């Protein structure tokens, strides 16, 4: 069996991996904004709720979280498919780190921006969404790229809750062919290539925004 014959099986696994990465990223982005902004709120209970979420998911093992959602949650009557579990848990996990990225980026915007917005009598919400958030978004892109790659790599964990992702396919192939070096080598290369594509994509987005706003040092 030549290496090329491994490709179809690995590619079908890659589809599952990309689905989880994309879905997880979507969940993570929403949660990161919600929790990141909640941590900046003037309302104490909201801050506390967000901090609890962030610390819980940062402070526990992602694998155990997956096991808990997949094997323990059904005992409370909530059954999710393996794919949904993977997307939600990985999203919750990366979202917790992302919340800190959002918070940091919002805090890094010069105070003069929100003062100018206040002087123009924009409401608090509009100050945030029209003035602060777009500028913060640009500053978030580099750390968000790191988190996206973390997310991609952590999808390998879902092979342990019955999903046929890239890593799981690799394990099967290895068991069938016993060509450990080649199979795992191929896996590494595929993960690496996908990570590169994601990195390039985010860099392009960053460059595009900087250029659209004619910022100095548009990289």
């Amino acid at each position, binding site marked *: 069996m030549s290496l090329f014959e491994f490709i179809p099986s690995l590619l079908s696994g890659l589809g599952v991996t990309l689905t989880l990465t994309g879905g997880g990223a979507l969940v993570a982005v929403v949660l990161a904004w919600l929790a990141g902004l909640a941590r900046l709120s003037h309302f104490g209970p909201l801050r506390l709720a967000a901090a609890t979420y962030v610390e819980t998911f940062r402070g526990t093992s992602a694998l155990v979280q997956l096991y808990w959602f997949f094997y323990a949650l059904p005992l409370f009557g909530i059954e999710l498919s393996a794919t949904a579990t993977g997307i939600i848990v990985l999203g919750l996990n990366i979202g917790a780190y992302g919340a800190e990225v959002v918070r940091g980026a919002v805090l890094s915007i010069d105070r*003069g921006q929100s003062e100018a917005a206040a002087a123009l009598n*924009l409401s608090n919400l*509009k100050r945030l969404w029209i003035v602060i958030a777009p500028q913060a978004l640009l500053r978030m892109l580099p750390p968000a790229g790191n988190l996206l790659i973390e997310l991609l790599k952590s999808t390998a964990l879902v092979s342990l809750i019955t999903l046929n992702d890239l890593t799981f396919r690799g394990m099967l192939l290895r068991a069938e062919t016993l060509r450990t070096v080649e199979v795992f080598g191929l896996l590494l290369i595929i993960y690496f290539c996908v990570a590169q594509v994601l990195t390039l994509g985010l860099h392009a987005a960053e460059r595009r925004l900087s250029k659209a706003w004619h910022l100095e040092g548009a990289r």
Partner: protein
Amino acid sequence: MAPYIAIRNLTKSFGKLDVLRGIDLDVPQGEKLSIIGPSGSGKSTILRILMTLERPTSGEIAIDGEPLWHMRNNGTLRPANKRHLRAMRAKVGMVFQHFNLFPHMTVLKNVTVAPRHVLRLSREESEFRAIQLLEKVGLSEKLTAHPAQLSGGQKQRVAIARALALYPKIMLFDEVTSALDPELVGEVLNVLRDLAQETDMTMLLVTHEMRFAREISDRVVFIDQGLIIEQGPPEAIFSEPAEMRTREFLRAILGEQS
């Protein structure tokens, strides 16, 4: 006639630092008032409190008879809530030392954002007004530029148009030429001069441009260490200041500027 802006015994402390130590100031409608004084004397803090960016420690301010930081409630005054502050803010506009333009918006968007979202004007109407204002400050050719493409003087002129777009009754100018390269100061002062001559807006300027203050002001207030030391018509303040501290300050700063 009742003063348009009435400030009574205004104080502001940042921790142990007393920035304002009891300011009383009346400003009639339409007056062009310059506030001068050494750095750290509290002049900018007065403007920031009027813009509601800074909460006073004590004292009262009324604009057009309406308390700014308080609300009347059954004859008693209590601290203003957010809605009251927003309503009061509609009368006041401010231009900052460091421009604070929104870097992700074009010049046109910078000037239309508040009319669109605060006054809820249509896009056409807000753009029509913005273009008029940008023409007035000499920047109608820069509508689609972003702030990063402008010089400091151009940025400040956009900031002036942006503040004017809400048609405030009171305009506050906080050292608006201090961050500019010397050769760009003139273009901003020209815009201010035109505004002072053409409009009946009440204008408060904190400035280090003494010659300019003398030229356009109806009245000049000299502040030092959080107190008004002396005030009067520009001729009196600049030609024959009564107070020792005013004389010392003017000697120091005019010595630098001549």
